[in-house]
C-alpha cells in the first residue's frame, strides 16, 4: 500500500505549491483593490474577491481544444496558460519580452506570450509546447533537440523549440547564419546555441513535415 502511494507524493507537493502560489499572488493583487475586499480575502472568501475584479469572457482554442473562459484583463497570455490552464511547459523567463522562454504560436505565428493580454486573443488558436507532439510521438524538432543535445538546464527549451518550428515553417532556416539571426529572440544562458542550430539544420535538411 505504502509503495502505491509513494508516486503520488511529489505530485501532491507540486499541487500544494501551485495552490499556495496562486493564493499568494491573489493576495498580492489585492493590494490594489478597496479595503473591504482585502478583509474578505483574509477571511479566505476567495469567491467575493473574484467578483470584485472585472472578468472578461474569452473564447480560445488551446492545443486543439476549444475553451470558454473568463479572465481578468491584466492576465497575460503567458499567465493564463500557466496559472489558469496549468500548461506549465511554456516558461516565464524575464516576463518582459527579452528572453523568448514564453514563445507560443498564435494562429500559427510565434509570439512572446508574456507581452500580450489574454483578452486580446479572443477567437484565436494557441499552440504551446504541450500541443506539439502527436500523442506519444515527439515532434521532429523535439526529437532533434534530444538527438543533438540542444539544451543544458532546459528552461529555455520549450521556447526554443516553438521558435525553431516557426523558424523552419517561415523559411528562415536556410543557413547557419540565417538560423542564428531568426533565433535571436530566444536566449540560452547555458549557451547551447551550436547544438540548437544543429538540431534545426537537421530538421530542415531531413525534409520532414514540421
Amino acid at each position, binding site marked *: 500500500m505504502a509503495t502505491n502511494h509513494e508516486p503520488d507524493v511529489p505530485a501532491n507537493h507540486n499541487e500544494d505549491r501551485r495552490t499556495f502560489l496562486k493564493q499568494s499572488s491573489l493576495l498580492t493583487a489585492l493590494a490594489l483593490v478597496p479595503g473591504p475586499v482585502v478583509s474578505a480575502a483574509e477571511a479566505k472568501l476567495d469567491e467575493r474577491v473574484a467578483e470584485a475584479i*472585472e472578468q472578461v469572457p474569452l473564447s480560445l482554442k488551446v492545443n486543439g481544444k476549444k475553451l470558454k473562459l473568463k479572465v481578468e484583463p491584466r492576465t497575460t497570455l503567458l499567465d493564463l496558460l500557466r496559472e489558469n490552464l496549468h500548461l506549465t511547459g511554456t516558461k516565464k523567463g524575464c516576463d518582459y*519580452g527579452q528572453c523568448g522562454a514564453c514563445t507560443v504560436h498564435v494562429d500559427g*505565428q510565434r509570439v512572446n506570450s508574456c*507581452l500580450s493580454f489574454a483578452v486580446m486573443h479572443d477567437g484565436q488558436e494557441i499552440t504551446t509546447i504541450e500541443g506539439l507532439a502527436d500523442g506519444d510521438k515527439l515532434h521532429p524538432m523535439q526529437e532533434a533537440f534530444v538527438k543533438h543535445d540542444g539544451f543544458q538546464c532546459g528552461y529555455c527549451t520549450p521556447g526554443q523549440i516553438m521558435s525553431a518550428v516557426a*523558424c523552419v515553417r517561415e523559411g528562415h532556416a536556410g543557413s547557419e547564419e540565417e538560423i542564428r*539571426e531568426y533565433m535571436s529572440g*530566444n536566449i540560452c544562458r547555458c549557451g547551447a546555441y551550436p547544438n540548437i542550430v544543429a538540431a534545426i539544420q537537421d530538421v530542415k535538411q531531413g525534409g520532414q513535415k514540421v
Partner: protein
Amino acid sequence: MNQFQYVRATKPQAAIEAVAKDPNARFIAGGTNLVDLMKRGVMTPQKLVDINRLDLRKIERQNNALRIGALALNSTVADDRQVRERHPLLALALNAGASPQLRNMATVGGNMLQRTRCPYFYDTALPCNKRQPGSGCGALEGINRMHAIFGFSDKCIAVHPSDMSVALVALDATVQVSGPKGNRSIPFADFHRLPGDTPEKDTNLEPGELITAVDIPDGPFTKHVHYQKVRERASYAFALLSVAAALDIDNGTIKAARLAMGGVAHKPWRLTAAEQALIGKPATEAIFRQAATVAMQGAKAFKHNEYKLRLGPNIIVQALKTAAAA
C-alpha cells in the same frame, strides 16, 4: 500592474471617441511596448481600447504611394513583396529591429509610438521629465552612453528607439491620422518631436488621434539602399546608432540621396544637408566622407556618449558604401 478597464473597438470612430474623452485611456494594438511599460508601472492607463479588430492591416498602392495600414505587423510589412520591391530600405530596417516573435506582434503604428528605452525613463525610482514632468533628467549627469547627440534639451536627452522610423523618415513617408476633429496627414519628419520643455510629449498627435496608415511615395530608391545598425550584440538589441542610406546612382553620379540616423536624437534624425552634399557628385568614398562631416555638424556629446561623434560619420560612410555597392 494597475487595474484597467478593457474594451474592444470594432469601428475607428468608437475607438477615437473612447480615448479622446478619457485622458487615462490608451489604444492597444500589439502591446509589445505598452504591456512592458505597464508591468513596470511606467505607464498606468485606466482604460485600454483594443484596436486589433479595426480594418487597418492592408498594404496597397494608391496615388503613387504605397499605403501601409497602421495595424500591419512588422513581420508582414518586412516580407511584403511590394515593400521589398519598391522600398527595400524599409524591409531592411524592420528586420534589424526586435526579434521575430516581437515583429509578429508589433504593428507599424505602434512601432512609431514606442517610448524611449532610456533607463531613467524605465526606472520609476529615478527622476525623468518624460515619465514625470518636473522631476528632472537623470541621464543628463548620469549614465548617458545611449543618449542623444542632436536636438536634445536640458530637460531630456533620450533617443527614439525605432529602426523602422529611421527608414520611413528617409523615404519621405506621410502619417495618416484620424481624430475627433477628422482626418489629417502629418509628414513623417514632423510626426515625432524634439523634447524642448515638454519631453513627456513624444509626438505631435493630439489626444484621441489614431494612426490609420503610413504612405510611402514611389521613388527611385529600389536598389542602392542599406540600413546599418550598430548594437552591442549581433542581433536583438536597440541601436547605439544606426544609419539609413538610399542612393539613386546614374553612371557613377548620385542623382538623389536620402540619409537618416537613429539612436542620436529624440526623433529619427533626417540628414538633409548631407543629402544635398551628395547630389550631383560621384559615388566615391571621399564624397561620402565629406557628406558625413556635414551630417555631424552641430553634434554634441555628453560624458559617456562621445564615441557617437566618431562612430556616426564612420557608419554613415559605411552605409553609403554598402548602399552604392548594392
